[in-house]
């Protein structure tokens, strides 16, 4: 049995457990935001189910061997959601959770954006939007050249799709037929200045990536069974269309006053804001206002 499968055996694939881990991601994001005095909490909340499903149920990784050459690669192109990824890596055993206690303090390895040279389990540094898909493209090309069968995953923000380099990488991935490259767009509908479709429209995303040669599916990024089934249905690395998952999500999901609000992109949470957010997350995801109507 390989190191990876042993590691995978330790992971818990049940939907209830994964929903609990998504809750853990949101609560840890709150805690770390308070340590730092600021954090990108709402962009992390939108990706919580996606990160939980990837890391606790799907990716071929081994926390005891972060540099394992055959591991799946994961590039967090929307690096500002690292605050939600750090606790996951600690929880899985890449490093002790206590490492996060001095989050963002002078000299800490853990900043607002992830650093591959300082943090085990981070496959590439990010922070400047628009780079991640190119990084992942290179990783997938390297895997093909080396005859390895790992897949390379890249989580993108939707606002980030305004960056031209994303489309350079998208074009190249289709051209090189990198089936092992998997893009995941956290389609949380907002960038800093407003709804993406008002600031700089990114739709129609399915048509756009399809026309660039990708195999595209669009899902509810907060529905754990759907996320799990979509990941499980991914094709293996090889020659074929790169695979794109457009995950429709809600920025700030899990805390009612943040959901699709422009007022909560980055900052600190204090007093009742913090307490309300904590108790709402503890209660688990509730139907959206639009769903109730």
């Amino acid at each position, binding site marked *: 049995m390989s190191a990876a499968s042993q590691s995978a055996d330790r992971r818990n694939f049940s939907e209830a457990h994964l929903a609990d881990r998504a809750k853990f991601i949101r609560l840890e994001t709150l805690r770390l935001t308070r340590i730092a005095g600021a954090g990108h909490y709402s962009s992390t909340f939108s990706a919580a189910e996606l990160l939980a499903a990837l890391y606790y149920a799907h990716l071929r990784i081994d926390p005891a061997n972060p540099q394992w*050459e055959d591991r799946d*690669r994961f*590039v967090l192109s929307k690096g500002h959601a690292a605050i939600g990824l750090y606790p996951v890596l600690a929880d899985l055993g890449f490093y002790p959770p206590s490492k996060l206690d001095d989050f963002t303090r002078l000299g800490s390895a853990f900043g607002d954006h992830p*650093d*591959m*040279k300082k943090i085990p389990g981070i*496959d*590439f*540094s990010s*922070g*400047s939007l628009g*780079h991640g898909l*190119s*990084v*992942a*493209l*290179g*990783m*997938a*090309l*390297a*895997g093909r*050249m*080396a005859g390895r069968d790992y897949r390379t995953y890249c989580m993108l923000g939707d606002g980030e799709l305004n960056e031209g*380099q994303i489309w*350079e*990488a998208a*074009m*190249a991935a289709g*051209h*090189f037929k990198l089936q092992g490259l998997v893009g995941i767009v956290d389609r949380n509908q907002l960038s800093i200045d407003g709804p993406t479709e008002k600031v700089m429209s990114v739709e129609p995303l399915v048509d756009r990536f399809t026309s660039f040669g990708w195999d595209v599916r669009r899902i509810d990024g907060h529905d754990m069974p759907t996320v799990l089934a979509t990941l499980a249905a991914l094709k293996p690395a090889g020659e074929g269309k790169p695979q794109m998952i457009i995950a429709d999500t809600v920025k700030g999901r899990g805390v009612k006053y943040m959901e699709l609000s422009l007022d909560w992109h980055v900052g600190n949470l204090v007093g009742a804001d913090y307490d309300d957010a904590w108790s709402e997350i503890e209660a688990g995801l509730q139907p959206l206002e639009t769903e109730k109507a």
Partner: protein
Amino acid sequence: MMGAAGQDQSTLFRGDDTELRLKDAKSVRGTPAKSMPAFILGDELADLAETDPRIVVATADLANSSRTRDFANRHPARFIDFGIAERNMITAAAGMASCGMVPYVATFASFAAILGAEAIKTDCAYPRMPVRIIGHHSGISMGFYGTSHHSTEDLGMMRSIADLTVVCAADANQLRAILRASVDHPGAMYIRLGRGRDAEVYEEVPADFAFGKAAKLRDGSDLTIIATGSQVHASLAAADRLAGDGKSVRVLDMHTIKPLDADAIRAAARETRAILTVEEHNIVGGLGSAVVEVLVDEQRLPFRRHGILDEFSLIGPPAALYAHYRLDADGVTETARELLDRIN
């Protein structure tokens, strides 16, 4: 039509037209192709790749101009043409490097270093990825292609990036030495090539090449000329002429702009009476600026920077431009004489 250097520009224009026209040339105006940087890049990398499976080569739709086509012909599975998408190429190379590859990515210097600067900083230098960014046709060597294709700012931009090695090849043999030494060198590297048809400076591959260690090509006591890249050859020719004036001139090939050989500069300041820097680059930010940052802590001595005087170049055939901007033996000699006049 006669140009600034008294050469027939119509001939120059034809001779300097396109790289494609030269791709199968055995020689250019009597200089064997094998002794010119542009003609050996792909083959040298292909030789290195014979024994090193980590080496991959990429270009952005300039396989002929860079002669990386020669690599592609020998190692097709390890060659990638990214099309006209330089940032994607540089960042993807960093992704490949993170998986154990040693990528050499080549395009015109203006697009490699200036367009690609942020990708070089963020994806290559900071994470210390062993990506080798090769900027060919640097300086004003693109001639009449114009300012968009000139690269007289790249050294200034690249040398302000921490943990990036910045090196300039003076000729084909030095380029071979650079490439051989680069394979296992830690971190990211910017390799600046000149026009690709630069005249020979080193008769053979310099065995003592080391990054960060200037090569003393002539010793002397009156003046030190510190040159890099294309201007090493011109500076040696100038030193010969100045010898005719009875002047003893030291010539340093400062191939590595970063890390800079500060010891060699300090020694020149103590052992010779004046310093002249010569570069095919803006005098702002490049070799001259780097040298002056060392000299500011030394005793004062006459100093001049020779290069592009903080302006966008005219367009014109390359040879005419070199003459116009005095980036040749005549120009270096003339500037050196002006400087030496100040100490006599």
